[in-house]
């Protein structure tokens, strides 16, 4: 384990930012945390957690796929991608790091999404252990340890120092570059912090939330539950939950005519939107009930069926905080579970 004195934190950031883009949670003018590019003088915020998840780094909200030039009957295809620069994300919490593993299962499964893959390869993740979880946190439900995050390098911020634990070759190399600022350290302060955080995690209101009800579940049984109508009745059909969610990955592909050519881009889409499955010939999900059900069925049932039982949620609590009507995955889980009793 390596130690960096807090006094040297800015020097450490400067060292990294010298060669590659460095992003971290920084408070924006609305008083919210947002991953922003670090520049001299920017201040890391250690609050919990950013409004938008860290998925943007690998799966941005909009991204250009390919350009076309149309001339008469002829079409020219232009792959407009340019080499991406390497970047480092500091301060990713345990839940968000796990979300990358979930996104990997979608985008890196055959056929590989090369846009995503290239970003994954260029990015190095320095995760940060939580010390003051929010009431909305329930990462433990999905087997995530907020005090021991995954990622290329795990870090812990104590009162006077930052501790680093490399967890991959990429992470090892990154720390080596900053070797001069780091010193070997004993891990007891980290252990003490972990102990302290664990006592908070135990006290969280959602500490006992369990996925048991959904394990190896028959999809028709959950799908046909009568509770969906009640759960979805107030849903506004906005995309807030899907857009702040670190694991929601549905996208749309659209064309934009610039007047000089066509840009085909992809952008985040939401299964909560009424036009998500709308076709010229009809619409299989006619009301908000079906759309609402789709989102939670996907996270709690379909995704586990296709991915060895891994759930499509990491318990970051963003949808709990941001839903305009405060309907969320926790309420869905509890209601569906309550039905069985």
């Amino acid at each position, binding site marked *: 384990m390596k130690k960096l004195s807090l006094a040297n934190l800015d020097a450490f950031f400067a060292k990294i930012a010298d060669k590659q883009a460095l992003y971290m949670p920084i408070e924006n003018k609305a008083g919210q945390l947002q991953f922003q590019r670090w520049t001299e003088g920017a201040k890391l915020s250690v609050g919990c957690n950013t409004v938008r998840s860290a998925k943007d780094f690998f799966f941005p909200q909009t991204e250009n*796929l*390919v350009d*076309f030039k*149309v001339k008469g*009957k*002829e*079409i020219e*295809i232009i*792959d407009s991608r340019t080499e991406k620069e390497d970047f480092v994300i500091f301060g990713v919490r345990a839940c968000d790091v796990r979300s990358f593993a979930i996104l990997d299962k*979608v*985008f890196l*499964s*055959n*056929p*590989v*999404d*090369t*846009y995503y893959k290239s970003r994954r390869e260029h990015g190095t993740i320095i995760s940060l252990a939580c010390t003051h979880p929010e009431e909305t946190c329930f990462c433990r439900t999905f087997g995530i340890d907020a005090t021991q995050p995954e990622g290329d390098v795990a870090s812990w911020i104590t009162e006077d120092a930052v501790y680093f634990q490399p967890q991959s070759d990429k992470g090892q190399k990154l720390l080596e570059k900053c070797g001069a600022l780091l010193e070997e350290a004993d891990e007891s302060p980290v252990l003490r912090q972990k102990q302290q955080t664990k006592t908070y995690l135990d006290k969280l209101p959602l500490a006992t939330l369990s996925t048991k009800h959904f394990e190896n579940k028959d*999809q*028709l049984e959950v*799908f*046909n539950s009568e509770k969906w109508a009640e759960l979805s009745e107030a849903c506004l059909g906005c995309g807030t939950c899907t857009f702040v969610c670190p694991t929601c*990955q*549905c*996208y*749309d*592909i659209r*064309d934009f*005519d610039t007047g000089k050519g*066509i840009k*085909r881009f*992809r952008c985040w*889409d939401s*299964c909560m939107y009424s036009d*998500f*499955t*709308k*076709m*010229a*010939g009809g619409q*299989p*999900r006619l009301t908000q009930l*079906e759309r609402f059900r*789709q989102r939670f*069925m*996907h996270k709690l*049932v*379909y995704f586990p*069926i*296709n991915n060895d039982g891994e759930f499509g949620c990491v318990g970051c609590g963003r949808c709990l905080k941001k839903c305009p009507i405060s309907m969320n995955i926790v309420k869905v889980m509890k209601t569906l579970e309550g039905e069985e009793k």
Partner: protein
Amino acid sequence: MNTEALIPKIGVVTDIRIDTPDVKTFRIVGLDGKKVFEHIPGQCAMLSMPGVGEALFSITSSPTNKDFLEFSIKKCGCVTDWLHQMEVGQQITIRGPYGNGFPVETNLKGKDLLFIAGGIGLAPLRSVINYVRDNRKNYGSVQIIYGSRSKDDLVDYREIIDEWMNDEGIEVNLTIDREQEGWDGHVGFVPNYVKELNPDIRKTVLMCGPPIMIKFTLAGLKELGFQDTQVYTTMELRMKCGIGKCGRCNIGSKYVCKDGPVFRFDQLGELPNEY
């Protein structure tokens, strides 16, 4: 599989055949004049005109055709409207093939086959029918029951009359919804016609058509004694990526673009009825 799944190739339209008032069949080759890719009967491809949109279509030509791909497309939305107004020589973009296709080399081999199609539903089946015709010894008897609104709406009518009907060991039963001058064949809806014909229940069924036809035909087949495990169909839902990532074409845990579009009815029975 193409490593750049979302970047299409260019296809050139070399022939446009008017099948019915609202269906045209487009023949597409690559820029080099060769077939753009090989496929399995029942698979689909994404066709697009940049700036207009992209949509998934079944490949109607058989893989045994080594020269080109064909798509029979019914005019019903903005992409298909555009495709219908284009002329020979037009370039479009194409990517694929997507989906699982019919199990022509496994489950269907050696079986007696019954094809049931309604309207444009013949498009995905035509690929299988011609594949079977070209590999005739691998399959048992072939019966085709095909219905449409009117005589003019029968897709590939010429091919049916001139080729399929002349093949030995292929029984073709055509029907149209309403009486029409110049039509001396059967009149009536497909589900009823299937019951009338009372096919051998040992046959394996490949069915495609409008949802309402599928619903009643399936019920009819069951009455006759067919099992869910004997009946295959091919599905369609809205798609954007074609590779199981954009997240919209799922029926329960299965993606139509990746795990489908061909499903057996016993598989569909385990999935939510959301299609």
